[in-house]
């Protein structure tokens, strides 16, 4: 602890403690002092109070659902609610581990998660590098376009993929078969991995982009002049320096892949490929409707344990934070790497990716929204297209209400989450031991599947005398709880990049900590914060399980409407029309954030 305090990055973290403050006050109050000499200290106290309040709020948001989760996991509540059952048991866990599928599922999950993370990591690192670090032609336009589909729920995306690439009549599969003679089966582990990987790219790209954008070019140049080729210097210099960003992004995607249900369900069920999330889903959504909360919570606890492992790994990797300080106050430059004669070949590859991964699914979605009934893209059915579905959804009296709800929920959640995430990231970087503890604590809900988290929040507010049940605020609370750990990690990785000297020089110039934070740290972290905001906004737009679970008659959102259309009446065309609406919303916000958040000098 002593050494941590003495280290360059946290020169006076301990100044926050009351003893130090009183010491300071005595020293400055003794001589005939100007009248406002102790005003800063009152301000300090107010700030400490505010900090404590936020810390308590965060702890509350995290600890209660977590407590609920552990409590439920120890209840054998197959057909009842956890608190209707006396006594505790480990039965849920023994049931899980004695399931005959446990090995198969574990192996499938491992392959699926690893594959998804690798696919998404490779693609998004490549895109982040190309868009943020090089002079790739058209990057201003391509970068936002890769983010556009972020708000489309996975279910809709998976169906779009099925339509586009199913082996029977998907135009993409047919095209590939014609061109290369290969028959691709999307209903397979590789197919699931590919779709889930591509689905994860926007989120990952958003996490990685600021990390890459901030990297001082000088480090790469030093390697280039030492004779290291592009691959070597990327491997040995660029990637290690962006390690915190990459591992945070990989972790995020690992849990997304672990809990994502729609893709394994739609692409895995046909060939009976089960992964972990299928089990959670089976426990939580049996046909009878009576969820086995005990078992679902036990799965949640297992994921919490898994996230403990991830905390350990992540902490280890970012422990020596000075290793990632790449934004310094000397010779900082970040002009783009020149691709030279690779410019156009690389652009072609990127365009191809955008075509396959973004354009085709979106095109399929738009196509579906214009058709009377679900059918793959083909010239024959061109004549049947109409805007009837749009007419139908806009005639739906609940839509206006749902749009308002959705916007309020997404805006409030994004803002709240970005704010709390920023606070938490700062606390972990600058707030000493308590801050880091809180940061790690928030991590515990990182991996809790959203359905399980939603149930915990549901129970909590049904029984607490806080009147949020049935309103949009319960959804805001649940989503905020869910996204804060992710958001804080996104922001923390960019704080790790800042050299302490940048802050120090501000304080030596006489600016208070708060001012330095506002004027130096925040502007430098701003790209990460705005992108985090965008990520939360888009994900909140499209988040389904929590919205579904907590939805009542007054707080229904657009995705819930969308789900209704798919759920009982299989009306994918109308659902697609709604998805196109979500797509437009998220594309609009991507455009807006990019326009505002882009800094010319970087």
């Amino acid at each position: 602890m002593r050494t941590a305090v003495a280290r360059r990055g946290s020169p006076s973290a301990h100044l926050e403690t009351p003893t130090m403050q009183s010491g300071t006050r005595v020293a400055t109050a003794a001589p005939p002092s100007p009248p406002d000499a102790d005003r800063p200290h009152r301000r300090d106290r107010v700030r400490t109070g505010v900090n404590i309040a936020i810390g308590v709020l965060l702890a509350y948001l995290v600890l209660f659902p977590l407590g609920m989760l552990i409590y439920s996991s120890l209840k054998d509540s197959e057909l009842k609610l956890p608190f209707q059952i006396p006594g505790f048991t480990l039965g849920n866990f023994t049931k899980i581990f004695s399931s005959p599928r446990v090995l198969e599922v574990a192996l499938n999950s491992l392959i699926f998660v690893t594959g998804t993370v690798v696919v998404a990591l490779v693609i998004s690192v490549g895109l982040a590098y190309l868009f943020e670090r090089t002079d790739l032609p058209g990057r201003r336009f391509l970068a936002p376009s890769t983010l556009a589909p972020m708000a489309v729920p996975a279910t809709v995306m998976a169906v779009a993929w099925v339509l586009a690439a199913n082996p029977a009549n998907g135009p993409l599969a047919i095209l590939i078969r014609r061109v290369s003679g290969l028959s691709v089966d999307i209903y397979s582990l590789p197919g699931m991995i590919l779709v889930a990987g591509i689905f994860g790219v926007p989120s990952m790209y958003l996490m990685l982009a600021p990390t890459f954008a901030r990297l001082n070019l000088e480090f790469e140049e030093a390697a280039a002049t030492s004779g290291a080729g592009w691959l070597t210097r990327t491997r040995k210099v660029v990637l290690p320096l962006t390690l915190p960003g990459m591992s945070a992004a990989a972790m995020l995607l690992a849990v997304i892949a672990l809990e994502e249900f729609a893709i394994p369900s739609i692409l895995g069920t046909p060939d009976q490929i089960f992964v972990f999330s299928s089990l959670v889903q089976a426990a939580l959504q049996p046909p009878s409707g009576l969820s086995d909360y005990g078992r679902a919570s036990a799965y949640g606890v297992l994921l919490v344990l898994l996230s403990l492992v991830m905390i350990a790994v992540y902490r280890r990797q970012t422990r020596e934070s000075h290793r990632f300080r790449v934004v310094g106050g000397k010779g900082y430059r970040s002009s783009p790497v020149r691709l030279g004669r690779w410019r156009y070949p690389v652009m072609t590859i990127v365009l191809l990716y955008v075509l396959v991964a973004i354009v085709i699914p979106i095109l399929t979605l738009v196509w579906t929204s214009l058709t009377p009934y679900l059918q793959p893209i083909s010239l024959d059915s061109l004549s049947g297209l109409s805007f009837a579905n749009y007419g139908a959804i806009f005639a739906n009296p609940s839509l206006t209400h749902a749009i308002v709800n959705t916007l309020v929920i997404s805006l409030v959640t994004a803002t709240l989450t970005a704010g709390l995430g920023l606070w938490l990231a700062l606390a972990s970087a600058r707030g000493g031991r308590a801050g880091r503890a809180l940061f790690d604590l928030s991590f515990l809900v990182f991996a809790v599947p959203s359905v399980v988290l939603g149930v915990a929040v549901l129970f909590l507010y049904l029984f607490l005398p806080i009147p949020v049940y049935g309103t949009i605020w319960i959804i805001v609370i649940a989503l905020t709880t869910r996204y804060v750990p992710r958001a804080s990690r996104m922001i923390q990785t960019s704080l790790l990049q800042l050299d302490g000297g940048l802050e120090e020089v501000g304080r030596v110039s006489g600016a208070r900590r708060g001012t330095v934070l506002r004027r130096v740290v925040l502007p430098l972290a701003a790209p990460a914060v705005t992108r985090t905001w965008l990520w939360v906004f888009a994900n909140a737009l499209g988040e389904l399980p929590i919205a579904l679970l907590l939805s009542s008659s007054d707080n229904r959102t657009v995705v819930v409407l969308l789900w209704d259309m798919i759920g009982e009446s299989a009306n994918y065309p109308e659902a697609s029309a709604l998805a196109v609406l979500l797509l437009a919303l998220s594309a609009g916000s991507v455009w807006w954030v990019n326009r505002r958040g882009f800094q010319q000098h970087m």
Partner: protein
Amino acid sequence: KPPPAPDARNLAELYRAAKAEGQVIWFAPKPEAQMRPAIQAFEKKYPGISVKYTNKKAPDLVTQLNVEQAAGRVSFDVSNAGGLTVLPSLDMAAKVDWAGFRVPGDQIFDGNFVYVWAVPKVWAYNTDAVPASVVPRNWNGLLSPRWNGGKLTVESRGSFMTVWAQDRALGTDAGLDFAARLGRLHPHYTDNTTQAHTNISSGQTPIGTDLINLVLEDRAKGAPIAVAPVGPTNANKAYLFVPEGSPHPAAGRLLTAFLASPEGQAALVGSYNSIIPNDTDCSQAATNRVIGALCDAGVRWFSETDIRQYQQFADFFPQVEQALGTDVN
């Protein structure tokens, strides 16, 4: 605190009490558009009571009601049960003397449930992909090697097999044997029947399990889908009930009674939602398009008549999953 059950004995008293409540909140697993005519008819007949409708899947409804009742904060007045959600819903329903509100006796189920529409399961095929000559005529026709390897789409939880537990002539043992043989064809499994339906109508799989109203809806929009003459089949009943502790108990009762009445049924039938006879009976084939379609295809059907059947289904489905090889746990 939930209001006490109304002491109304007849519809007039009930309407008075309901009007005082002013509102009724109805949750059911159907798109709002399909329910709109019935809602409008209700609001016209009983002015002063507004209906707030929410579409929610049946299992989600049970979940929500279960939790809300435990917390003493039920948020809706009319709920829905059918198939496997019937058993858990039994305890959640308020005790109502439906006969007093002029619900026909054969639509009252287990005292507190009201039968309002049926969802017959059928086998459907894509008319573009399957020539009329090869359409299976019976359950055994489904086992033809022609459908081997993902050509046949079924719902993996086995609900399409309900009729094997229902019809003595078929029998559960034969059903399990059938399921095992079906499993060997490597069907294209889906999580639920609606997904199977989209697979068929979009031409991805030529044939599979389906629900008759989905087939009829898409057919009306021009989709190349038709009902295969595979029978007998199960016509799943859906019931409405008023949850214990609901916020507008009188209005809930009033709406339920209305939907069960001939007026309500007349408003519902247009969207393929209506009661049908418990056994194959083609006398209303001309007026009821669901019955018409079943009769045209020559599919025989059964509906549940006894609460014990639901327990049989609940026991049977896990065995079907085992036989198919689709059990998750």
